[in-house]
């Protein structure tokens, strides 16, 4: 699932770490015990945020709907060839709870199946964006010097270059399959997190235990993976949760402009279909209302969870 608390908990328990009974606890055992404890503290703090818990609940429900789509509605209802006998532009009724569109497609089927693409693109593109951001941020912060100079200039450029126009030009010259769309959204949105992760890397790098590790002969790889990465991980996870919303909105924008992924159905594509079918002019509000509200709900839920995580990680924010 998307909440870092939930995602970390099982992985923290998998390695057997008998701490108190063993006479001399191993370093690894100690580390895992410490991590498990901090995840516990994190979860206890997170639970106190009402907005965070509401957001988390909404996300769990949306993820379940997306995963269980085949059990909930028939995919056939989203394919125009199968819906030829359905009434067209039918307002919500008992047969079609959210009505049908101009091709007789069931809007509830489009909503449920659209959740898959929208959430998938949002999550994977945001993950890609954070991976790039973390790699650039850690490399710039850790190595410093000319590497930092070059990476920071590229990062500044990507921070300023308007995202959607760049994404449009990229999609226009590349393909329109799902992978390309995810790649384009990821590659246009990493700069903000790279900046934050670089700043955090700079402070962690100066801590004594990093000096100690280096004095004991640790190489860059060991320091980055064992000391820097675990310490910037909280920021990475908070940023991931806050990047998903913008990735989902970007997918909606690209799809609305007619350059969404070829395959499948997404909420953005439903909005585009509503616009091309003159839903506004003909007063067919059910064409766009469910998909639009779904985007807003999921985006808001991710933002609420992300803000709650940030509040737990940064006590200074708590009064806000």
């Amino acid at each position, binding site marked *: 699932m998307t909440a870092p608390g939930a995602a970390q908990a099982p992985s923290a328990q998998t390695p057997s770490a008998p701490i108190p009974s063993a006479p001399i606890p191993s370093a690894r055992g100690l580390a895992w015990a410490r991590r498990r404890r901090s995840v516990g503290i994190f979860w206890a703090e997170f639970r106190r945020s009402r907005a965070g818990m509401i957001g988390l609940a909404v996300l769990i429900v949306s993820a379940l709907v997306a995963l269980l789509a085949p059990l909930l509605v028939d995919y056939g209802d989203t394919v125009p060839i199968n819906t030829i006998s359905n009434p067209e532009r039918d307002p919500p009724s008992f047969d079609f709870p959210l009505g049908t569109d101009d091709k007789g497609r069931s809007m509830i089927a489009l909503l449920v199946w659209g959740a898959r693409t929208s959430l998938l693109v949002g999550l994977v593109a945001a993950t890609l964006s954070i991976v790039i951001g973390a790699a650039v941020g850690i490399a710039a912060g850790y190595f410093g010097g000319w590497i930092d100079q070059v990476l920071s*200039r*590229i990062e*500044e*450029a990507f*921070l*300023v*270059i*308007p*995202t*959607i*126009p*760049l994404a*449009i*030009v*990229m999609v*226009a*010259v*590349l393909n329109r399959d799902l992978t390309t769309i995810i790649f384009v959204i990821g590659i246009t949105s990493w700069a903000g997190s790279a900046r934050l992760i670089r700043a955090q890397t700079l402070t962690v790098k100066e801590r004594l235990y990093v000096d100690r590790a280096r004095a004991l002969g640790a190489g860059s790889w060991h320091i980055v993976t064992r000391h820097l990465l675990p310490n910037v991980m909280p920021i990475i996870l908070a940023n991931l949760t806050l990047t998903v*919303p913008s990735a989902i*909105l970007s997918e*909606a*924008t690209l799809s*609305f*402009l*007619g*350059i969404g992924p070829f395959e499948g159905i997404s909420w*953005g594509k439903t*909005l*585009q279909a*509503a*616009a091309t079918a003159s*839903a*506004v*002019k*003909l*007063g067919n*509000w059910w064409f*766009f*209302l469910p*998909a*639009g*509200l779904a*985007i*807003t709900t999921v*985006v*808001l839920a991710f*933002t609420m969870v992300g803000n709650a995580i940030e509040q737990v990680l940064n006590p200074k924010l708590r*009064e*806000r």
Partner: protein
Amino acid sequence: MTLRTILRRSLLAVVTLFITVLLNFLLLRVVRTDPVATMTRGRKVSAEKRAELREKFGLDDSTVVQFLKYLKELLKGNLGYSFQTGRPVTTEIFSKIWPTISLIGISTLLSAIIGIWLGIRAGWRPGSAFDRLSTGTTMLFYSTSDAFLGLLLAYLFTSRLQWFPTGGIVDPRSDAVGLQKLFEQLHHMVLPATVLTVGYLGQYSLVMRASILETSKEDFLTLARAKGSTDDYVRRRHAVPNAMLPSITLTALSIGYVLGGSIVIETLFTWPGLGLAFSRALGAQDFPMLQGLFLVSSASVIVLTLLADLLYARLDPRVRIA
């Protein structure tokens, strides 16, 4: 602010601009479809004519030579020719720039003013009913897709209430001139401008709120209060001027997002600006036009960011370096 700062910032802007141009060129190179084939599609064109066109576009040169040629033409203000109309891209862009500048200008101004005002009020009394209502509402709009907000407002105000026209900048049947024409244009602008204003004021209010909260813990506010200043005076004279700075940078950066939003909104409301040109060029696979539009939008954001940075450094003596 020293000359050094100005030079340093300008150099950074030039580097960013260069990266944009390079990116633009590389993307152009990625286009696997032959531009000559695209241009001559569906027409009978002799092999010699094709070779001549390839020669004209310099498609047989090496990548580096092509890039240098591209740079040279760019510096001369030549962005190539639109596949759709055959006219120079620069001419096309200039003919469509004013509707976009006015739309983005007005909505940025409005969202900055309203957002900053909301942020100040909310941040000064965190947790108050006003704070909860305004933060909740702005978050809600901020989380809404521009396309959906546009569709929703268009449905409510053009289809249901019929208060505003459905699209365009003037009614093609009207023969209004002068002031009357201006009013008609403003009438057409209300809906698209409202969507962009409401959709983007969230950033201003959230940043301003955070900034006021940060400032409200400063010692100089305690001192001002100790001197007997009223709460209102402390807010207006001490807190707000100090908390305003981040919103300067934000305004410049926000233009970049609004540009993205304006592509959607201009398409939806057929507002005849650069955004509509963007989506039309996209539909027609008009690469020179797409790249010209991308370059112009990036360059404007880069220049605005530079101006904002310089203004920031001018206003805040603490920012001297970096």
